């Protein structure tokens, strides 16, 4: 069975907010709401470190890291268990999703989510531009919404928007049940944490910290399954397949994302407006 998960390499993350912004745009997230937030671990404010400057030739103690945070797509998701009307449910592929036509807006799921990943449409959602953005229909007033791992893209064989738009290759999406997927390999190879592990929610989002992963060196429009010769363990440069340069010309995006067989959805091409 497919069981989608996300690996976020906090060592690679540069705190640029590209994932937060592309999420907002792709999913037509209303003004005043965020599904995906890049939090600063360090000082009291965004982009501020903790600690002090080096003085008198000392080394200083400045410290800062970023923690991109969205719905963790918990295995034992409390939001799914509390939803009285089955509006929040876990898909067969492990994605936790909300049926916006069913949600009664009781907000029990917001109480249940330990990560504050959910937002509620307190009034008629506003969009800029008014017609909305991205590929997802607007949600009405009075329902709860949140990150869907871009299920509409995944269904088409594409990675979530935040993954393709991360310029630091800090986000890797894939099938946790497939031993050979990059996410599985990284979870085995690197030291990874889940947020608030002690709550027993068993999130499908894993954070790498400590040693930096090579990220996602693929820049080809080929599926990962076709890139077997590309080793994610090397430092990248020589792994870029030759085809990569050829695909640069296809600027439209979309057309070359067809899935072959049951391949797991993966990297769209350079030309799709993400990685370039």
């Amino acid at each position, binding site marked *: 069975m497919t069981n989608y998960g996300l690996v976020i390499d906090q060592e690679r993350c540069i705190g640029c907010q590209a994932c937060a912004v592309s999420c907002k745009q792709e999913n037509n997230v*209303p003004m*005043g*709401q*965020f599904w995906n*937030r890049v*939090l*600063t*671990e360090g*000082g*009291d*404010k*965004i982009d*501020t470190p903790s600690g002090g400057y080096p003085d008198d030739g000392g080394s200083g103690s400045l410290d800062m890291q970023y*923690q991109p*945070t969205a719905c963790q797509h918990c295995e034992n998701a*409390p939001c799914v*268990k*509390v*939803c*009285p*009307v*089955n*509006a929040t449910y876990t898909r067969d592929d492990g994605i936790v999703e909300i049926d916006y036509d*069913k*949600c*009664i*807006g*009781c*907000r*029990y799921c*917001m*109480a*249940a*989510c*330990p*990560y*504050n990943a*959910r*937002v*509620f*449409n*307190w*009034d*008629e959602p506003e969009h800029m531009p008014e017609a909305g953005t991205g590929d997802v229909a607007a949600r*009405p*007033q*009075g*329902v*709860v919404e949140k990150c869907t791992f871009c299920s509409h893209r995944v269904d088409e064989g594409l990675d979530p928007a935040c993954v393709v738009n991360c310029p630091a290759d800090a986000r890797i999406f894939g099938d946790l049940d497939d031993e050979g997927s990059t996410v599985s390999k990284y979870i085995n190879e690197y030291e990874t944490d889940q*947020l*608030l592990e002690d*709550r*027993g*929610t068993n999130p499908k989002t894993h954070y790498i910290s400590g040693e930096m992963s090579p990220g996602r060196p693929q820049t080809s429009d080929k599926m990962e399954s076709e890139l077997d010769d590309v080793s994610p363990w090397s430092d990248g440069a020589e792994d870029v397949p030759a085809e990569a340069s050829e695909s640069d010309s296809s600027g439209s995006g979309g057309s070359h994302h067809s899935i072959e067989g049951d391949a797991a959805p993966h990297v769209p091409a350079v030309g799709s407006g993400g990685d370039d």
Partner: protein
Amino acid sequence: MAADTSRIAIPAFGTKGKLWLGLLATVIVAGLAAWGYQLTTGLVATGMRNVFSWGLYIMMFVLFVGLSAGGLIISSAPKFFHSHRYEGFARLGVLVSLACITVAGLLILPDIGRPERLYQFFTSPDFRSPMVWDFGIVILYGVLNLWYLWLLTRRDLAARGSPLALGVDDTDAGRERDRTLMFWTAALALPTAVALHSVTGWIFATQIGRGDWFSPLVAPVFIAKALVSGLGLLLVVSVLADRLTNYEVDREELTSLGKILGVFLALHVVYLLAAERLPHAWANHFEFWAITSGFLIGESVYFWLWTVVGGAVPLVMLMIPSLRKRVSVIFTASLLAVFGTMFEGVRLVFTGYEVANIDLPPGISLGGEYAGITTDIWATAGAYTPTLVEVVVTLGIVAFGALIVTLGLKYVPIQRVDGQYATDGGTKERQ
């Protein structure tokens, strides 16, 4: 059977009565208008936002579920044990319970973002959700109260020729049968009441994500709280009814129930609270005095309002023998107990939402022009002040509860006047 076995508390509304009804009607209409306004603007009209996503409605829901306990328990417990103790409170108690559970149920409506979809509870319920359990038990409890009130009074209603008897006749055999039914209803009412308060507690106690909510003690505390506040409210209402209507409280029973309230208060505010706080205080502090103060000193003003104004003060009032016989003292102590319990619910919701588990900057998007302290869309902690809209909607619903009690006093023979009236049934089976 003669018609004088019972008494109606309000034979007819006088000037004051009409003024009271007018006041209630005004508040109800204002509440409806405020709800209408909230429906058109959305819940942005409330003080709730993404971090603090439940507010006054849920706090008051918790209070009124608790308040609905007292009456039913006071009238059904003696009936279950074939005693006619507190008979004078039996009908009034069930009436008050019915009003409170109605208020509690109605308070959920304005909290729901899309109330028109509530039918989903029937078409697509998830039985893992404590809210589904609570939905079921609140409805069951409401129906049970309605049935019980009717059962207690239907023969008297029939004797008076009231259409509310719904065609039941006043016969000796019928009254006999009703006593059996009352026993079985009482037998059902007690576990239902326990289930109601436990399940309402479990809505919170099952949540690992919300601070102190996740505690096995929440359900027992909800039961103790229901006993305190429910009995407190029943005493308040009975004293008021005694002063303002033809209803008469039996002084001796009142004093006795006052003592029981003292016991409930001791169990709830002293014992259970200590049991809840001591382990945390012990684990978090090292020095003896640090442990002691961590144990004794609460964290918020709600804590003090609840434990001192609503706990210690009424407890002392009810403990001093020279004081506790006075109706005014019982009345004040009961009122304080109800008032204090309100802040327990408030505190519970605050402990869940005040602190975000992940409070890194910039924080969580609030999702609406936040009218409170912060000015941008981000928050790293929960803050909440109810808006006027929430207050008016809540008052409107509470006024509806008061209307139920008032009309009950007018149309239902709320008091028996012939004394002895024990239930029958359980013993018969055993004979």
